[in-house]
């Protein structure tokens, strides 16, 4: 029997790592990957709570989170491609210019 505190702790640690990645890194692609880590951590917590409460709702919510994550990845990559075509760079410092 896995204690629920361990599951929530693991999900939270992965969420923390992802949040640090989004905040610290300047490479757009790595920032998108860190977003995936954030959503993975949330999914672990949802699955663990679903098992703890003996309800299928945890898995269902995690399924919807995965759907949103896929959408976010696709649109994010389209934006990265369009941005790279425009600026030839991935640096978020270059992205801060409003003038195209």
């Amino acid at each position: 029997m896995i204690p629920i505190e361990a599951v929530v702790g693991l999900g939270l640690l992965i969420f923390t790592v992802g949040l640090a990645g989004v905040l610290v890194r300047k490479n757009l692609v790595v920032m998108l990957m860190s977003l995936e880590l954030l959503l993975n951590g949330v999914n672990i917590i949802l699955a663990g709570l679903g098992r703890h409460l003996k309800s299928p709702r945890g898995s269902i919510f995690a399924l919807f989170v995965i759907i949103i994550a896929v959408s976010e990845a696709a649109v994010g990559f389209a934006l990265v491609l369009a941005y790279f075509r425009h600026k030839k760079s991935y640096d978020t410092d270059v992205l801060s210019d409003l003038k195209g």
Partner: protein
Amino acid sequence: MITLAVFALFGVLALAAAVLVIVQRNVMHSVLYLAFTVLATAGVFFTLQAEYLGAIQILVYGGGIVVLYIFVIIIVNLKEIVPERRKLIPKLFLVAVPVLLGAEVVTLVLRTGFPVAAACDEGTRFKEMAEMLLASYMAPFELASVLLLAVLIGAIIVARRKHIDDPD
């Protein structure tokens, strides 16, 4: 007991690979560690008896998103390594914010504790999940399919070239 050991193994692997994702300088290495994290997370789902989620995780993340990342990196030929010009103190500050946030939530969770539920014993098998997904959560399910269609069209429109004869 064995379940707990397997959970701990996959959890530690996922966490270590997650840290490696964000500290790598080479983006391709980051993607490979992300694939490792995703598969280890699928293992965690299996030990939590969420087999459907584990399978979806392997299929959608491991088979779809990671390959999408690799393709994008190949298409745009990501040779340049973005210089991480932040000074040490802002970097430490930005790491400290999520760490403190995580510590705060862990403290709160440990102090409050979780209810020993069984109040809503609805079963966690495939059958209950499928019935609930297609009955109570029918509207979000259909909305998700509309969202995926919109994303498909939107991604094509955003990422396409403006002119066919445009060299890049």
